[in-house]
């Protein structure tokens, strides 16, 4: 087992047993579930909305080259710059070089999972640049020096008491646990950063080809401040974020909001087409868009899994996932967690190191039911599993075990024999005091669970007794 898989098992076991964490995550998810139910009721036909969104994304992804070129051409026409980055390093280098050239000392950032993916903050910090995360949740996890817990609600795992203690320790003089006052503290702190920063970095929820615009969605308004006040605005987005037309947003915005938080529409849906024009009173002098590949074009070449690039990062599949609800976002050890993270990460960072995540699922299918662009996530988990097995990445005993299982399942006699042997073996093991020891093959399972009493007779024996032979 590799280091990532070992860490995953260790962390998952630890958080699965953390009752306090479960309570706060459950509270968050229940709140979300209720809001989404109300949100969906606003649609006449939610299913039709999902289908249309899927179609929009599919149209863009199937002709990605054309739409990206159109987007680039229009951004250039308006005086913006487009940089194509093949890897995370290329993207970081472009931004840090730009910052160094312009003498940037402070960067304000709005929430961007792609910037987490390329580890931009670390790259800027090693060049001596101060980076402020300005989304409240991101600001909190940045102060805690940990990655976001969830792609939409980064501080989902923390109570107000913990946040208050954090502010007291890091910001000083904070005597409140009231969310309103804590928010005001962060606002004051970050306003100073906004007005002193020379560069603002944002993500983009959509790249609009026909208008050469980036579309950014936030509730707090921090992305607007990042793209309005500093002299330079840099937007970083995966190449899969492109959509054909501005009018598509009339559907994508409410769908993203409903799936993401249950809102009818997010508070600020901003379009930026370039730097400030001569007649405008404010806005940045420079506008840069970094288009990140980092494995996406490889995923595009996989006809089975291409649709994973339709993802609009709404976070719905995380909230719906019983595994995410149990082990939380950090245990995954990846930037993207939950079902979409388990599907996507092997493509971005290698199957060998991250195939184990696709096995940590009961394939219950809850994620596919909620996904607003109808990505068949369980199928992709299965395909990742198949690919991992074909590549010989699974342990030998697993293979042997499944071969044996199949062999037994294929034949009535063998099945009966195995059932008997298992019941007998378990009884013997218990009698010999082996249950729970290193020799017990069920130890992993029974460590945290009660093993039910094994009945004396098999189901088949009981059936024969009550229904007769045949």
């Amino acid at each position, binding site marked *: 087992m590799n280091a990532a898989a070992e860490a995953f098992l260790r962390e998952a076991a630890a958080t699965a047993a953390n009752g306090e964490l479960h309570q706060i995550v459950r509270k968050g998810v229940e709140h979300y579930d209720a809001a989404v139910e109300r949100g969906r009721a606003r649609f006449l036909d939610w299913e039709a909305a999902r289908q249309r969104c899927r179609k929009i994304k599919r149209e863009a992804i199937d002709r990605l080259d054309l739409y*990206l070129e159109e987007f680039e051409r229009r951004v250039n026409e*308006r005086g913006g710059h487009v940089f194509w980055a093949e890897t995370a390093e290329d993207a970081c280098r472009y931004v840090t070089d730009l910052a160094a050239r312009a003498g940037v000392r402070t960067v304000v950032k709005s929430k961007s999972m792609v910037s987490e993916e390329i580890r931009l903050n670390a790259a800027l910090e090693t060049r001596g640049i101060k980076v402020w995360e300005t989304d409240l949740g991101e600001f909190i996890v940045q102060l805690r020096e940990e990655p976001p817990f969830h792609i939409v609600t980064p*501080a989902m795992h923390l*109570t107000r008491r913990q946040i208050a203690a954090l502010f007291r320790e890091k910001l000083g003089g904070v005597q409140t646990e009231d969310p309103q006052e804590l928010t005001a503290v962060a606002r004051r702190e970050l306003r100073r950063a906004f*007005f002193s920063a020379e560069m603002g970095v944002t993500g983009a929820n959509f790249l609009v080809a026909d208008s050469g615009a980036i579309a950014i969605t936030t509730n707090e*308004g*921090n992305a607007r401040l990042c793209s*309005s006040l500093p002299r330079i605005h840099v937007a970083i987005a995966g190449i899969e974020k492109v959509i054909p037309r501005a009018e598509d947003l009339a559907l994508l915005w*409410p769908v993203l909001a409903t799936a993401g938080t249950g809102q009818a529409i997010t508070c600020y849906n901003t379009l930026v087409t370039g730097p400030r024009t001569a007649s405008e009173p404010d806005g940045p002098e420079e*506008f840069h868009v970094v288009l990140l590949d980092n494995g996406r074009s490889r995923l595009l070449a996989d006809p089975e899994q291409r649709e994973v690039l339709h993802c609009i990062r709404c976070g719905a599949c995380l909230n719906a996932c019983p595994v995410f609800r149990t082990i939380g976002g950090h245990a995954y050890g990846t930037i993207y967690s939950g079902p979409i993270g388990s599907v996507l990460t092997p493509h971005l960072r290698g199957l060998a190191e991250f195939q184990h995540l696709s096995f940590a699922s009961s394939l219950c299918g809850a994620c596919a039911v909620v996904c607003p662009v109808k990505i068949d996530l369980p199928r992709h988990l299965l395909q990742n599993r198949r690919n991992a097995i074909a590549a010989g990445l699974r342990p030998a005993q697993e293979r042997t075990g499944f071969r044996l299982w199949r062999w037994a399942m294929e034949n009535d006699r063998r099945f009966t024999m195995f059932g008997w042997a298992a019941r007998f073996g378990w009884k013997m093991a218990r009698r010999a005091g082996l249950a729970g020891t290193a020799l017990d093959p069920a130890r992993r399972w029974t460590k945290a669970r009660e093993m039910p009493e094994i009945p004396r007779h098999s189901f088949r024996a009981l059936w024969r007794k009550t229904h007769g032979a045949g």
Partner: protein
Amino acid sequence: MAQVENPARERILARIRAATRSVPSSRTAPDARPIFAPVSGPLERFRAECAANATECIVVETASERGRALADLLGGIPEGEIFAQDSPKVRRALALSGTRQIRWSSEGAPSENSQAGVTLAEALVAQTGSVVVSTACGGRGASLVPPVHIVLADTSQLAPDLPAAMETIRRNGTLMACSSVCVITGPSRTADIEKILVLGAHGPRRLVVLISRESD
């Protein structure tokens, strides 16, 4: 230019082309199924949505009544600079507000301590209770930096739904003329601490829309 020095562009595009070459065209008949119920009574819907998203919506008959409503509103806002979009309409409306210190968008960006931003809108959206602003509405900061954003509008600007609002923007060439457009729905908010709703996270704590039935 950066992209000329950057061969990555060609490599990425080549990979995309190779990956999508064999994808059959996905063009299917347009799906006409209605997704939202059509909006009837746009003004009533707009008011109801505003109530739900914490926008303060005041409807009056005439433009001059709207000016008086603005004066009332500004009367309740602390001393200090008011930032305003420099346009004849806004100047006419603010003429009724007496001696407030006003910084016009023609003089530059709003200062950090502006007490309110007064702007027009590109459109109002009944379906969601949203206000569409562009950089022509006093720039990017006008609707963002001050703690209160006041919008002067009239009922002729009401688009029934988002598709109609996007169509208005397209027709007017707003995205061509302006470097930024924003669909604003309610005051700034966050629920990042225990999912508890807090207004005024980074942007305005109050969003007030003053609508006159008569256009001016």
